C-alpha cells in the first residue's frame, strides 16, 4: 500500500467521523418538531447538542482540507462540479450555525420559533444532499480529459442519487432519535424512543435497497460485499436494539452501519476517486489525483500526531456533558429581550 492509498483510507475515516458525529446532530435538528414538540422540549434537544455540534462539524472541514491537500484534482473536480448542491449545503450550514447560537440570545417566543424553524430546515437540507453527493461520486459523472465536470445540475438528480439522499436522511433521523434516547429523560425521552423504532426500521429498508443497487451496478470490487454486510449488520442491529430499548448498543450499531456504508462507497470506487462516465480513461484515480510524495509524507506526520490528540479531547468533551437532560432541568429563560422592559 502506498501513501496515496493510505490517504484515500484516511479521508474515508474523516468522512466517517463527520457522518457519525454530525449525523446525530443533524438528526436532532430535524426532530425538533417531532421529538421536541413543545417549546421546552425543543430547548432540551438544542441543549443535548449545544456543547458539541461545532466540534462535530470540524470533521467536515478536516475532510475537505485533507482532500484539497492530498488529492487536489479530486477536490477541484468535485467542488466545482457539484456546485449548486454544495452551495445549498453551505448555506444550510451557515444558517444552522447562526441559528443554534442566536436562538438563545433573546428571550422571545417568536424569536426562538423562527430560529427553531431555521434549524429544522437547515438540518434537513444537508442530511439529504450529502447522500445525493456520495451517490453521484459512486455512480460516476461526466468528466472530460482535463478533469472538468461537464454534466450540469440535473445530471446529479438520478434515481440512484435521490435514493442515496433518502438513505442518509433515514440514517440521520434514526441516529438522532437514538442519540436523544441516550441523552434525555422524561417526556422527550419517551418521544425519542417511540420515534427511534420505526426510524431505524426505515433506515434498514432504504439502506438495503440502495446498498444492493450500488454493489450490483457500480462496485469495482467484490470485497465490498463484506462492507455491505457490515453496514447491514449495523443497521439491523440498530433497529433490533432500538426495539429492545438498549440505546447504547443501538447507537454503536448505527455507527458501525455508517462505517460499513463509507467502506462500501470508498471501496466501490477504488482505485478511482471519481469515475468519469464520459470515458473511463478520464476517471480521477487515487494515482492521478494525488499530491506529491513529499506532501503526503508531511500530511501523514501531522495526521499521525494530531488525530489521537483530537480524538482524546473530543471524547473528554462528550464525557463532561454526559448527563441526561429533561424539561425539568431547563432553567428559567434569563436572556435579554430586544426592548428593555
Amino acid at each position, binding site marked *: 500500500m502506498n501513501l496515496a492509498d493510505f490517504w484515500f483510507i484516511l479521508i474515508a475515516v474523516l468522512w466517517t467521523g463527520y457522518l457519525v458525529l454530525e449525523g446525530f446532530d443533524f438528526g436532532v435538528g430535524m426532530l425538533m418538531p417531532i421529538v421536541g414538540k413543545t417549546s421546552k422540549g425543543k*430547548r432540551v434537544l438544542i*441543549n443535548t447538542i*449545544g*456543547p458539541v*455540534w*461545532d*466540534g462535530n*462539524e*470540524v470533521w467536515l*472541514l*478536516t475532510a*475537505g*482540507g*485533507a482532500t*484539497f*491537500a*492530498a488529492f487536489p*484534482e479530486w*477536490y*477541484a*473536480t468535485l*467542488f*466545482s462540479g457539484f*456546485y449548486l448542491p*454544495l*452551495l445549498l449545503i453551505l*448555506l444550510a*450550514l*451557515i*444558517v444552522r*450555525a*447562526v441559528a*443554534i*447560537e*442566536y*436562538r*438563545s*440570545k*433573546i428571550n422571545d417566543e417568536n424569536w426562538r420559533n423562527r430560529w427553531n424553524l431555521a434549524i429544522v430546515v437547515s438540518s434537513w437540507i444537508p442530511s439529504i444532499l450529502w447522500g445525493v453527493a456520495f451517490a453521484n461520486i459512486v455512480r460516476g459523472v461526466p468528466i472530460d480529459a482535463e*478533469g*472538468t465536470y461537464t454534466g450540469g445540475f440535473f445530471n446529479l438528480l438520478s434515481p440512484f442519487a435521490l435514493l442515496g439522499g433518502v438513505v442518509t436522511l433515514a440514517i440521520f433521523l434514526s441516529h438522532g432519535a437514538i442519540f436523544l434516547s441516550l441523552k434525555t429523560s422524561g417526556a422527550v425521552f419517551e418521544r425519542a424512543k417511540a420515534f427511534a423504532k420505526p426510524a431505524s426500521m426505515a433506515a434498514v429498508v432504504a439502506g438495503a435497497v440502495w446498498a444492493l443497487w450500488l454493489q450490483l451496478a457500480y462496485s469495482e470490487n467484490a470485497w465490498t460485499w463484506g462492507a455491505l454486510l457490515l453496514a447491514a449488520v449495523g443497521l439491523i442491529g440498530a433497529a433490533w436494539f432500538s426495539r429492545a430499548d438498549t440505546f447504547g448498543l443501538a447507537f454503536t450499531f448505527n455507527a458501525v452501519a455508517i462505517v460499513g456504508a463509507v467502506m462500501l462507497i470508498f471501496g466501490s470506487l477504488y482505485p478511482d476517486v471519481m469515475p468519469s462516465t464520459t470515458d473511463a480513461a478520464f476517471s480521477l484515480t487515487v494515482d492521478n489525483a494525488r*499530491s*506529491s510524495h*513529499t*506532501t503526503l509524507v*508531511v*500530511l501523514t506526520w501531522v495526521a499521525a500526531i*494530531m488525530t489521537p490528540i483530537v480524538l482524546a*479531547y*473530543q471524547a473528554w*468533551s462528550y464525557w*463532561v*456533558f454526559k*448527563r*441526561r437532560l429533561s424539561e425539568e*432541568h*431547563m*432553567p428559567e429563560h434569563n436572556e*435579554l429581550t*430586544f426592548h428593555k422592559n
Partner: protein
Amino acid sequence: MEALDLARWQFGITTVYHFILVPLTLGLSVLVAIMQTAWVRTGKEKWLRLTKFYGKLLLINFALGVATGIVQEFQFGMNWAEYSRYVGDIFGAPLAMEALVAFFLESTFLGVWIFGWDRLSKKVHLAVVWLFAIGSNLSAYFILAANSWMQHPVGTEFNPETGRAEMNNIGEVLTNNTTLLAFPHVITSAFLIAGGFIAGIAAFWMVKKAKQDKTDPELPMYRTALRFGAVVMLVAGIGVIITGDLQAKLMFKQQPIKMAAAEGLVETTTSAPFSFLTIGNLAGDDPSSVKHIIEVPGLTSYLATGDFNAEVKGLTQLQDEYAAKYPGYEATPDYLPNLAVTYWSFRLMIGLGAFSAAAALAALWLTRRGAVTDKTWFSKLAVGSIAAPYVAASLGWIFTEMGRQPFVVAPNPTGSDMVYQLTQHGVSKAVDAWEVGISMVVFTVVYAILGVFWYRLIVRYAQEGAPVVEEPDPSDDADRPLSFAY
C-alpha cells in the same frame, strides 16, 4: 460580467465580511481568557462580571465567524478549481493542518467553555478558555502561511510532468518570511480591534455611570475595563506599526509592483517621495497622468530601504520587467494592479490605525491616577472609534490582495520562475457565470441578513452592561437543573 469577475467579487465580499468577524475573535478570545485568569487569581467579582460580559459578546461574534468561515475553505474548489489544481499540492497542506491543529481545538473547547461553568473546576475551566484562545490564534497562523505563499511562493518547484507547483520543503512554507511578518501584523491589528472594542464599550458605561453617580460601585469596574482595553490598543498599535513597516520593506523586494502602486510611483526615482494626496488617472490605464500634490521627499525610499536617497523602481519599468519575465497574459500586457484601490487603501489603513492608537492615548490620559470622566464627547469618540481599526484591517486586506493582481500566485523574484499563476487562469472551468452569479448574490443577501442580527445582538448586549453574576458552583449532581442552557 464573466465568471471570473463574479468569482472575484464573491471572494472579495465573503472574505472581507469574514474578516470583519475574525479579528475580534482572535483578540477578544485571549483578552477574555486574561480577564478570567484575573478572576481566578484575585477572586475579584469585577473580573468575573467582565469575563461574562465580554464573553457573551465574543460568542455572538464567534458564531457568525465560524459560519462564514466554512465558505472560505470550500470556495477555492467551487470557484477556483484551476487554482486548486495548480497549488493544491502545497496550498492544501496548511489548510489541512489548520483544521487538524487549530479548528478542532477552538471549536471543541469553546463548546466546553460555554456550557462548562458549572461542570468543571475553576482551574480546568480556565484552561479550557485558554485552549480555545490558542486554537483561534493558531488557525490564523496556518491560514496566513497559506496566504503568504500566494504572495511569496517558497518551498516549491514547478513539476512539468503534472503541470503544477509542488512542495519540496514544508519548513520553508511554514517559516516563509512573509508569514513571519504577516502573522504578527494581523494578530496585533486583531488586538487593536479587540482592545478598541473593549475600551469603547467600557468608556460608554463609565461616562454613563459617572454622570449619574460618581460613587456608583460599578464605576471602577468599567474604568478598569477601559484602561485594560486602552493599554492593549496602545501596545498593539505600536506592534502594528513596527510589523507594518517591516512588511513594507519586505514587500518592496518581494512584490515591488504592489508597493510602487501603493505609492503611485510611476517612474523609477531616487529619493522617492511619499505622497498624501494624488490626482490624475489612478485607474491604471494611464499612469503617466498621476500627479502628487502633497508629498514628503525621500520618505518612500526610506520606507522601502531605510535610506532616504535610495532608488525605488517605478511602475513603468516594473511593467516592462514583468512582461519580459512572466509571459502568459493574452490580452494587453498589463501587470499593474488597480492603482486607485491600492493607493488609497494603503493610506487609509495607516491613517485609521494611527487614529485608533491616538484615541487609546486620550483614554489613558483622561483616566490617569484613578480619574473617571463624564464627558459625553469622550463616550461618543470612544464608541465611534471602535469602527476605525476594523476599517483599517479590511483596507489592509483589500490592499494586499488587490495589490497582488493580476496574479493569484505572485511570482517570487528569488524563487522558481515557473511558479506563479494569473488570476484569470485560476477560475473554475466547470462553473458557468450564472451559477457564480447566483452564488455571489445568495451569499451577499444571506450575509447581509445575518449581519443585521449580529449587529443588533452586539448592540443590545453592550447596552445592557455587565451582568450581575453568581459564582459558578461546579457539581456532578445529575438531577440539579442547569444554571445555564441555550
